[in-house]
């Protein structure tokens, strides 16, 4: 699968990352390198091997449904640039 410069710019835009043309070209080279590695790996026949998600076969740990957190908004909001009426304030967003 060939990745184009357009793909790189589009993904960067979706991820809200500002990149220059030079950076985009460098990234394109790097991603193309990764893809060729993946292509090489795809040559291995894995049709008889069950997919696994973790080398040690561990599974998701669960917690009991109970409230364990206390109200710490004052502490958290010390780091916020702007707050009012216990709300975090951000630049106006309208779709």
């Amino acid at each position, binding site marked *: 699968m060939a990745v184009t410069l357009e793909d790189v710019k*589009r993904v960067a835009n979706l991820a809200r990352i500002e990149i220059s043309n030079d950076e985009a070209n460098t990234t394109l080279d790097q991603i193309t390198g990764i893809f060729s590695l993946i292509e090489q790996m795809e040559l291995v026949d894995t049709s008889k091997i069950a997919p696994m998600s973790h080398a040690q076969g561990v599974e998701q740990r669960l917690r009991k449904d109970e*409230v364990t957190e206390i109200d710490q908004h004052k502490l958290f909001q010390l780091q916020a640039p702007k707050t009012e009426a216990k709300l975090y304030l951000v630049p106006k967003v309208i779709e």
Partner: protein
Amino acid sequence: MQWEVVVGLEIHTQLLTQSKLFSGASTTFGGAPNSQACAVDIALPGVLPVLNRGVVELAVKFGLSIDARINSPSIFARKNYFYPDLPKGYQISQFELPIVEGGQINIQTGKNNEEDERIINITRAHLEEDAGKSLHEDFHGMTGIDLNRAGTPLLEIVSEPDMRSSAEAVAFAKKIHTLVRWLGISDGNMEEGSFRCDANVSVRRLGDDTLGTRREIKNLNSFRYLQQAIEYEAEFQKYILETGGKIKQATVLFDSEKRETHVMRTKEDSHDYRYFPDPDLLPLIISSDWIEEIRASMVEPPDLCFSRFIDSEIGSNGKETYALSKYDATMLTVDIDIATYFEKVVRIIGRKEAKLCANWVIGEVATRLNQDNKNITASPISPQQLAELILRICDGTVSGKTAKDIFNTMWDGESHTSADEIIKIKGLRQISNSDEITKLVDMVLIENPQQVADFCRGKERAFNSLVGQVMKKTKGKANPAQVNDILKERLKKKN
């Protein structure tokens, strides 16, 4: 030209847990802003999500109730988009291997008509976290963010495009609404946003196999809006196609005041969410032992309860049946609390009088609950009290009409009084002594020669008037059936 409307629904229902999907913060509605948003919910660096066991159990209950497959492993994915009420920059959702896959729901669009019964297939139901809330009121030109809702567990139920009208879509949404409340997995509170629908709508020529291009109506939080929005949208699409236009895939919003939909975004600028498995979360394994444990803890699903209420033979499981009409059974199973109340009453009185019990619960009780805007669990008259009252009708102590008066007396504050006490204090015991009634009937016949003559000339209505006269003399305490019989007999003699 004949058009067919095609609708598929996505329903977001908030799961009824104490704590959030991935954190130990409270999910209680209406707290002070950001008082229930912990480090995980506001996405401080270095935090890790830990899955809530209770959420998994509620989702599995839903899956089992619709005969769906429970996926194990089931995996969580990141859905990436930027919005200030989504602090992580992604929502933890499910893409591949959702917890629930497949299953179906039966809906009825008409009353008592089996031909109107349709099966709606469920594609999937997956777990995801809710976002926070943006407040666009004026904060000096800025937006206020409350993250209390961020991380609240949602089950998104996705249907196949199996519905063919707005009425079917509403019937489906209502069925799911009843089901999630019945199972106790969601409070279904639509005002608080615990139950919201998105509708995918397209139209095609009747008989076409392929689906038309769809537009998705977002965030419908009432059944009425759901109906209106689909109707408007379908008409709009028909108009565009009939005038030679083409439908462009888009996401639209419904304006409930203007009753029309308008475009929020088109496909060209639609989000590319770049889903990928969340590396913070391992695959969720749900063992068959655990599934069986959950199954054993479930209440009887509403459809089975409904069938049991209309069946006349006692089923193989030995559970009680009541041979009620479909209408009665529908009314009694709109809510698990109503069904439970009814069964408590009928268990005291006996299944022979199931119809009478149903009439009281659907009639008097429901009417008063409606008037007082109360849930049946808050009824001032307990099932035991109602049963005692109905028993007095069955044994002829009071007439149905008097019983209604007693019911209202009990409802209006004289609580903890039994029907028997009220009958005794107010002297409401029905006159069932036939000699006494015969005496009164004769008196009425003498006093009303005109009506007697009318009746003899074939005027049926005169008979009712005579019954009324007798009832009046007894202040409504005579047994009406007995009055009827005696009066008929005396009139026959006159004829």
